[in-house]
């Protein structure tokens, strides 16, 4: 291939523009889908942060989370987490931090606090399990 600087510059510009267009289009589509999902549920979408630490997940943690879920949560949210007295917990659109705070603090007149029963590790395991639903 002969290196023609003008042609290279044009190729860089066009390839870059195509890539940026593709990423922007998917970003806009993602945001639209997020807003649609939020509008049809009671959940509030939390802003996503690029450099948020990655939650540790493994089949063992998920299994431990399921055991803890069945012990502490299943009587309100149902054994399959489809909801009973409490809401359906499938496809949660909220952050790990939001779930942690909700379990620790509870919600007045709706959900008790699990501050004394579940430590951070146990809540992380439950969260890992909920993410698989």
């Amino acid at each position, binding site marked *: 291939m002969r290196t023609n600087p003008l042609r*290279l510059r044009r190729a860089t510009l066009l390839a870059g523009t195509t890539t940026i267009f593709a990423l922007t289009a998917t970003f806009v589509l993602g945001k639209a889908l997020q807003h649609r999902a939020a509008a049809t549920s009671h959940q509030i979408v939390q802003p996503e942060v690029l450099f948020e630490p*990655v939650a540790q997940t493994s089949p063992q943690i998920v299994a431990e989370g399921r055991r803890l879920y069945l012990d502490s949560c299943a009587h309100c949210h149902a054994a399959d987490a489809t909801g009973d007295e409490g809401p359906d917990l499938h496809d949660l659109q909220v952050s790990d931090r939001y779930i942690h705070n909700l379990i620790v603090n509870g919600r007045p007149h709706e959900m008790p606090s699990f501050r004394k029963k579940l430590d951070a590790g146990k809540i992380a395991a439950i969260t890992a399990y909920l993410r698989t639903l």
Partner: protein
Amino acid sequence: MDALIWSKVHGAMTHFPIAFAPCAAVFDAAGMLCPRKRWSRHFHAVSAWLISIAAAASVPAIVSGLVMTKGQMLGHGVLRLHHLFVWPAFAFLIGAAAWRWFSGARVWESAGFVYSALIWLSVGCVLTAAYWGGEMMIAA
């Protein structure tokens, strides 16, 4: 409509970039290294079409993935790890295919160092994203 339609579309479409991007990189390298011009031309042509199909299939793969996650672009846990490699992989794939066709090189010619660099970067990201995608299926 089948409730798992998007999951099936995602599963079907993601395997095109997973299979074709590494093959495109290998054929491009073979085209550069092969001393026989006739074979070299064939290798470059195959690489060009493979990367184009991989990039084209990555679009429905990305769209179906976004629909599955209800628009979450990062997510949490293993899904987050999957996404952290998916987005660069998508960018490199589209960039490599666009460069291949806009560089002015004929389909049987080498598209130069930039193209080679882009496809190897896309291969790294695609395969890592695929690994974490597979881990999600096993963990579930």
